[in-house]
């Protein structure tokens, strides 16, 4: 459980490490968003405010940055985030079959979270795995050369 009303010591330590590299605290705001997201899964309005306070910037200014980048989640996500590459090489190699497979297995579409809170499914621009298309990423792991029949086994490894 996170105490949403303060940043944790680890979060602050990690943010401060980034701040030290830059000429002004607010320049580290993207790093700070990442750090808090790492700890909390997503960046809630409360978290946003905490970070903004810590970096001496306004909440609006921070949210302006946060909402620009697609991998900062401003809405809750599942325990695991699936990023399915929908860019050109994966398109040619049939990512749509993978998408259908995921939809069937998880009963969710892009932008949705499975009812058990396990997975959030998002489309993602090119994962740089074009020579092994189609590909997807779950959390930190990349799965290249995907076939729809592998999906079940892959998904099962994520509790």
């Amino acid at each position, binding site marked *: 459980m996170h105490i949403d009303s303060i940043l944790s010591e680890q979060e602050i330590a990690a943010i401060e490490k980034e701040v030290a590299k830059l000429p002004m605290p607010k320049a580290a705001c993207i790093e700070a968003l990442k750090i808090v997201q790492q700890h909390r899964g997503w960046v809630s309005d409360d978290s946003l405010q905490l970070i903004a306070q810590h970096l001496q910037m306004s909440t609006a200014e921070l949210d302006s940055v946060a909402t620009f980048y697609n991998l900062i989640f401003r809405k809750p996500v599942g325990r695991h985030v699936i990023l399915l590459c929908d860019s050109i090489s994966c398109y040619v190699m049939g990512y749509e079959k993978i998408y259908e497979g995921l939809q069937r297995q998880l009963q969710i579409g892009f932008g949705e979270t499975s009812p058990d809170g396990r997975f959030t499914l998002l489309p993602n621009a090119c994962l*740089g795995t074009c020579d092994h298309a189609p590909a997807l990423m779950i959390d930190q792991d990349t799965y290249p050369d995907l076939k729809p029949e592998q999906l079940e086994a892959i998904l099962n490894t994520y509790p």
Partner: protein
Amino acid sequence: MEKPLTQYINPNRPALHLKEYERVGGYSALRKALTMAPKDITNMVQEADLKGRGGAGFNTGMKWSFVPMDPDIGTKYLIANADEMEPGTFKDRLLMEGNPHQLIEGMIIAAYAIQANVSFIFLRWAYKKAARLLEQAIAEAYDAGYLGRPMGSTGYQLHLHLHTGVGRYICGEETALLNALEGKRATPRLKPPFPQISGLFGRPTIVNNVETLCNVPHIVNNGPDWFKALSNSGDAGTKLYGVSGRVKTPGIWELPLGTPMDQLLEDHAGGMQDGYRFRGALPGGASTDFLVTEHLKINLDYKSVASAGSRLGTGTMVVLDDRTCPVGFVHNLEHFFAQESCGWCSPCREGLPWTEKILRSIEDGRGTIQDLEILEQHTIQLGPGRTFCALAPGAMEPLQSALKYFREDFESHISQKKCPWR
């Protein structure tokens, strides 16, 4: 055939750690560079005619030469652009996962040449393995005194930080990248002033592509003439060429600049998969014009590709086969570009979604002949100079060439009121 960039990269073995890298001659170029005047390194790189591998192909040494060298100028920055989000592009990943110290060495030399004391690698988020390896390598380099401490008699020292992005293709555009590094929205900046004069935090800054920087140690070690001789063409050096799509062995190879296209496709990528025929290819990532069968013989260098009406771009090729609908193919690209527009300038923000919507409706059998006219107008009106940065003009390259080479396919969608491939 020499392969300076990839000679120590073996996907089946872990990347060289510092000691191994040093054992095969790593950091010797740095040591040599530190004995040279910074300006001489810049001249050497300029003479070697190392063209930027990030897509635009600008002479790297010349770019460095614009950095003010007045000793009182204050902080300067060097940045490795490792954002690599152009669909179909996966070459820098190989370099970073395969030999991170090569990039670090190249960065230190480049930073020394412009006398920058702080550097960043701007890495895209999805490259988790590269991030891990780079972190390790950077730590090793700090420990070994290549970073963070004055080196030798020069007193020169460099700090290097890894920054991983949080999405958005536009971060690869060098001025947008600077904004992202400053913790801002990654909208591009208006040039001039160029980053060389006012870049990161308003300080003189050089942004170079990973592959560009990886070439630097080899040029310093072996000289401009050696570098030029690596190539088959007017452009110096080797190039990482990649192929993806329905070929037998998609992958990435370091080859002399100017390797003929058919040689790349047949000898290296193994030709088309069984049952698929070649219809065309984007030679250098998603934002380059299609080349088609008639171009198979051309040499893949900057000039030859340009004279065939396209761009070498990143040198990573995406192949369109006969079982993939070209309209769907282009729609996929325009969907990407429309999504990745930063929203700063009107033509890109509003024009790209419009082209995407038209392509979708053609693909779905709802298109009209007037739609083709509107698409054509967009390819002109979203051209260079009209939009704020090169994203939208890049987006128009595959579209304009598709309208040229695959026009019947567009028309048949319209006349049949459906996609013939579905």
